[in-house]
């Protein structure tokens, strides 16, 4: 009984389509466990690194400290210079005041002297003794004026110096303000511990830690999947059966059944439905293969080129037809000219010549014979008529020649047009040939993926059909065996799924193109690929003509 139960459990394990044996799973589990351990260690190490690392950029701090010292020195120096300037300014200011006073005194003195000299001058006319005094006083006044002039110069110099000092002071104060501000910033940076933290490195480390955590999570998931693997569950169920713990065994088998039913098409009980779905999928695959084989996946970057080429080809064919047609007409005209008109004209000219000779001979006779005169008159009339006929012929000849010339010119024009089209077409073809073909890889990949998905579905349906019974049926059989309520044998031969069901269906993307070509050869009748122009008995556009009658009969 256990053998039957075990066989059915094995069938369910097979249905879960896991090709791995328990040993392989165990081997992978060991590998995953060791990877998990190594990841955990890496995470711990990273966490420790992050904790120990203060991420302070010491070189930046050192630079700022140097700048601080330098700025402090500069600020002190500026303050000293400013102090010196201020002292100098005070000195200059005092000097300026004193000079100002002196100048004012000298100016007052000079005015007094002028008045005194004027009075002395008025008296000179009355007293000669005053002359030497005037001379002495004038010399004194001159001397005073020179002193005043020098003092004024000195005063201007002091004023200029004062102005320059003020400018220098302003510049020094601006510099001092700038340095003081920079110094204050640097000092605040140096006081703030976060200023010199290496944020970039910190973020990098945190991201690396997050990645490690993610990969650990993935490994844990994989471990969980491996632990829940169908073969492990199946083994557990078998152990429970051996221990006759049927209740727990049933729970385990139910677990296994859930895994199996999660597989595509494994939950479908009815084989008829599966067969219909398989047929549909196979048709779908055939259509897709045909579609893909007919697609060149070239990106239509030069559609306009192709449209123009088609247009040119149509025009050239039509022009060829017209040229041939016109050449045929020319030949017909040529034949008509040579064989008919020219010959008729020649005959007419010969007749006229003969008649002219005859008339001339009659006239030479100079006879009064009434019959002869009558004949002469008649022949002259004939001659006139013949000349009119000849003139008419010649008019016709002119018309035909004109027509001939017109057609010839038209042929030339059509040939020029055709040559232009041919040149353009060749240029476009040259360009197309040099143009690199651009393949729509995305579209092709989409189709390939779709084909792959259909193939997988077909494989899955075939795999499910190969078992005959559905997973639910097998589960019921196991339960029945365990409960000894039924002796039904599953009895269906289960094909091994280790080998591919159909080699031609196991399409890999790399070999897809080859398979497509093979499939095309098999699936598409060659005649369907031939030109539309070719006639085909099955072509719905072909009809037998059963009657032909002139249009007049219809009217009648």
């Amino acid at each position, binding site marked *: 009984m256990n053998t039957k139960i075990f066989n059915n459990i094995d069938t369910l394990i097979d249905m879960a389509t896991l090709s791995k044996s328990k040993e392989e799973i165990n081997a992978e589990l060991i590998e995953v466990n060791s990877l998990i351990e190594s990841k955990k260690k890496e995470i711990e190490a990273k966490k420790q690194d992050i904790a120990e690392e203060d991420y302070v950029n010491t070189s930046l701090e050192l630079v700022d400290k140097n700048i601080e010292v330098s700025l402090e020195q500069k600020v002190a120096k500026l303050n000293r210079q400013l102090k010196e300037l201020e002292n100098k300014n005070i000195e200059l200011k005092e000097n300026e005041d004193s000079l100002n006073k002196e100048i004012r005194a000298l100016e007052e003195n000079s005015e007094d002297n002028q008045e005194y000299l004027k009075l002395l001058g008025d008296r000179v006319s009355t007293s000669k003794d005053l002359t030497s005094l005037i001379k002495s006083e004038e010399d004194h006044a001159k001397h005073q004026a020179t002193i005043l002039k020098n003092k004024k110069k000195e005063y201007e110099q002091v004023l200029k110096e004062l102005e320059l000092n003020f400018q220098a002071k302003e510049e020094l104060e601006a510099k001092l303000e700038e340095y003081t501000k920079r110094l204050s910033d640097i000092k605040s940076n140096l006081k703030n511990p976060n200023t010199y933290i290496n944020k970039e490195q910190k973020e990098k480390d945190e991201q690396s830690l997050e990645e490690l955590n993610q990969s650990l999570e993935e490994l844990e998931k994989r471990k969980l999947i491996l632990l829940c693997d169908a073969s492990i569950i199946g083994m557990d169920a078998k152990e429970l059966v051996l221990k006759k713990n049927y209740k727990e065994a049933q729970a385990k088998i139910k677990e296994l059944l859930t895994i199996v039913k999660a597989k595509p098409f494994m939950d479908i009980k009815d084989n008829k439905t599966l067969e219909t779905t398989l047929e549909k999928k196979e048709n779908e695959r055939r259509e897709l293969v045909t579609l893909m084989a007919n697609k060149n996946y070239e990106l239509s970057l030069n559609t306009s080129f192709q449209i123009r080429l*088609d247009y040119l080809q149509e025009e050239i064919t*039509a022009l060829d037809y017209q040229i041939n047609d016109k050449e045929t007409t020319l030949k017909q005209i040529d034949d008509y000219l040579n064989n008919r008109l020219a010959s008729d004209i020649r005959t007419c000219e010969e007749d006229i010549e003969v008649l002219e000779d005859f008339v001339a001979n009659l006239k030479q006779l100079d006879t009064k014979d009434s019959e002869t005169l009558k004949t002469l008159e008649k022949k002259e009339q004939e001659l006139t008529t013949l000349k009119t006929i000849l003139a008419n012929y010649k008019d016709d000849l002119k018309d035909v020649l004109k027509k001939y010339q017109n057609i010839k010119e038209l042929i030339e024009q059509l040939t020029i047009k055709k040559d232009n089209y041919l040149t353009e077409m060749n240029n476009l073809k040259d360009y197309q040939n040099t143009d690199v073909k651009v393949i729509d890889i995305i579209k092709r990949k989409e189709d390939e993926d779709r084909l792959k998905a259909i193939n997988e579905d077909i494989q899955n349906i075939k795999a499910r059909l190969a078992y005959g019974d559905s997973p639910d049926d097998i589960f019921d059989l196991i339960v029945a065996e365990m409960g000894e309520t039924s002796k039904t044998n599953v009895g269906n031969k289960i094909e091994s799924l280790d080998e591919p069901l159909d080699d031609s269906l196991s399409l890999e993307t790399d070999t897809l193109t080859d398979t497509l070509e093979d499939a095309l050869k098999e699936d598409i009748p060659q005649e369907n690929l031939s030109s539309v122009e070719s*006639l085909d008995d099955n072509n719905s556009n072909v*009809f*037998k*003509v059963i009657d032909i009658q002139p*249009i007049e009969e219809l009217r009648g």
Partner: protein
Amino acid sequence: MTLKFNHIITLENNDKYVVLNNAILGGKKYYLSMGITNKKANPQNIKILEEFIRDEELYVQIIEDQKLVNTLLKIFASQNKSY
């Protein structure tokens, strides 16, 4: 037997066409034809027919290849222009 200008042809499916023009292209005979409905020509139903003989019977094929149709229409149009 061959299709003729200004003649009416009846096909095995009982469709009728009046032949308006003809052209030879690539050794094949093509005819510009207009369908006839209720004994009246229908300008909405213009077809180009290719004539061929099989087992001594006359057949036509309705041309649907657009490129060929374009070319033939140009040829028929050029034939209508008088020199």
